[in-house]
């Protein structure tokens, strides 16, 4: 027990898990109905799971996907990509443009998605080249696409907010008949498994961390930092394309100004809440994805206590500050000292006592 506690209190997942636990406990006391999940039928007569938990999982899909990419970029380049929202808008526009030019069938959707991926990867290569070859800080390099991206998205569709419609689009954005879980959740699971398999069976994760921790020594050990950074920016491009496509499919149209607005900030936040250092190096994808769900759970909780959607930001800010202050080096050190000096003897004493009791019996 004591060992488990020690391991957990040093773990990266401490912050997101405790934040999630806090939210759960708060909601338990506030309204236990918050957690209810019901199986209902929607307008088309398909079975669908409904409830706050499902809407949290569904709503955080895009964020979770982008958080995966953002974690890799943060780890390798020691900075953040603030253009993800704009790139997702560009990719979504390409997706819609291709779909509207053709009849919507499965191969066409696949083709449109590949086209969106290609464009988003191109954006990633642009950002990645600036960062890795020209040695520009990631935040500044991605500022270019951040300011121009949504305008490019506008230009792709000739300035309109076109709609796409069709059962196949609904399958991706809402749900597939027969499976009561919303499709975006399935896509996140699929992508999560895929990425963790890639990291498990290749050296990409190791190399990414090596480059993030010390670029020079990684280079001396035969890793090419330029490639690693480029790859991480390409991965975040693909993530942005997936997020953009889901965003389009969810509402069936693209609004270049509104789609995934401010999501870059949330994605960075998810990485930070996940216990990852924003200064690069070691990373945990689990933490980031959990961070994304914490953010969405917080937003849903705030909505359910009738906070207007425009003011959610202010409350979110307070929570962010609380989390980062708790995770700051100074406070962490103080807490560690407190743990080692006060709590450890207490816990040890507690366990010794119980074991003594057991022995004496």
């Amino acid at each position, binding site marked *: 027990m004591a060992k488990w506690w020690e391991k957990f209190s040093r773990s990266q997942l401490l912050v997101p898990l405790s934040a999630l636990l806090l939210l759960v406990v708060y909601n338990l006391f506030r309204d236990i109905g918050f957690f209810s999940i019901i199986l209902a039928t929607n307008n088309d007569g398909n079975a669908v799971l409904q409830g706050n938990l499902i809407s949290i999982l569904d709503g955080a899909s895009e964020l979770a996907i982008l958080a995966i990419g953002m974690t890799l970029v943060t780890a390798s380049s020691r900075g953040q990509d603030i253009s993800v929202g704009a790139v997702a808008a560009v990719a979504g526009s390409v997706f819609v443009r291709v779909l509207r030019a053709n009849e919507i069938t499965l191969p066409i959707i696949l083709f449109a998605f590949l086209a969106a991926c290609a464009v988003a990867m191109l954006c990633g290569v642009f950002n990645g080249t600036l960062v890795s070859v020209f040695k520009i800080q990631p935040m500044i390099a991605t500022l270019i696409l951040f300011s121009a991206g949504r305008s490019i998205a506008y230009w792709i569709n000739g300035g309109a907010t076109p709609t796409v419609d069709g059962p196949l689009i609904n399958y991706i954005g809402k749900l597939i008949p027969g499976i009561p879980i919303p499709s975006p959740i399935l896509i996140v699971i699929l992508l999560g498994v895929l990425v963790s398999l890639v990291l498990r069976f290749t050296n990409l994760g190791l190399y990414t961390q090596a480059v993030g921790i010390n670029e020079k020594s990684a280079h001396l050990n035969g890793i090419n930092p330029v490639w690693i950074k480029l790859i991480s920016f390409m991965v975040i491009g693909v993530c942005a394309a997936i997020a953009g496509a889901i965003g389009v499919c969810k509402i069936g149209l693209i609004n270049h100004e509104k789609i995934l607005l401010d999501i870059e*900030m949330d994605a960075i936040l998810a990485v930070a809440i996940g216990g990852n250092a*924003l200064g690069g190096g070691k990373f945990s994808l689990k933490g980031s994805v959990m961070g994304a769900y914490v953010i969405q759970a917080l937003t849903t909780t705030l909505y359910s206590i009738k906070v207007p959607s425009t003011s959610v*930001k*202010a409350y*979110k800010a307070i929570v962010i500050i609380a989390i980062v*202050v708790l995770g700051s080096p100074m406070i962490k050190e103080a807490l560690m000292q407190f743990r080692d000096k006060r709590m450890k003897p207490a816990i040890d004493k507690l366990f010794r006592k119980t074991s003594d009791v057991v022995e004496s019996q």
Partner: protein
Amino acid sequence: MTSNLDTRGRVPAEKHKEPISNTNLLLTITICTFFGMYALAMLVWGGGFLNPQQFLDIFNNNAFLIVISCGLTVVMIAGGIDISVGGVTALVTMASVVHLNGGNGSVLGSLGLALGIGLAFGLIQGLLVSYLEVQPFIVTLAGMFFARGMITIISNDPKTASQETFLALKAFRIQIPVIGYYGKAGNFIPASIEPGVIVAIVVVLAIFFVLGWTRFGRNLYAVGGNKQSALMLGINVKRTKFFSYLLCGLLAGIGGFVYLLHTGAGDAANATASEMQAIASAIIGGTLLTGGVGNVVGTLFGVLSLMTINNIVRASGLRDPWWQSITTGLMLCFFILLQSMVLSAREKRGSFQIPGWMTFASRRIHHES
């Protein structure tokens, strides 16, 4: 800022001119670009660009941006970043309007409120960043969220100030003698500037003085250039960083008041994306985000260049608003690449060496060094 020693560590001979510093080199490029661009616009498009009022309108419309960009320059020189400035600006406009429209609001009171809000944001963010060592990006991101959220908590709808003293101040124009233009009827209309411009210019001069001639200013460059060696030189790194954020917050407050003087309305959509414009202006003006390099005069020219290129885009017939953000992006890209190439070329070849294609701009210095 750069040492007098050349690459081999020798003290240069008497006639050896001190190599131009990074700050001044980037500043020179920016100023040349601005004047070149404006001269080109005058030649090609003429019309509005020859009208002094249109030039002064760049100042009139962007006085707040100049003020907050100055704050950002200070923070960036010290190696930090503050993306809450736009949110603080908007929050100040809303709070001041609510105060002015309330029963006994006064202009002085709203100015005090503006400064107070700015200082409060600077204080908290500065404490968190410098003493608790939290990532500046995250802290100021939270600051931005908080400010933007607070605006809608105060009022969800845009509000227009209706207090009389304030409206008189807002309508006040300073006419510039001699300079002016001829109206359609052939009458001479003197060019005029708004009071906010005076504030902006005073701020630029004050920050210029602070950066160049005070201990705090020197400390900022030292801390941004190399935190470790600044610490070893006995500079209080934490306090310097803290004051940079405090100053930036204060300037964001002033910027909010200047914004209000220009538009007279509080709105959640005020100053949207202005933090990014301010960062872009500082970068175009030659400030490096890595810290240690930068100049507030460059930032001023950064704002002017950014706005001039927008005017040029509009004058050349591309009136859709989305062209402006694309050109802003392109311009940012150009300057970022330019900085990167200039600095890496200098790093490689020692003291003052610039790529061959750039020798035209500074041939004189090149030959002397």
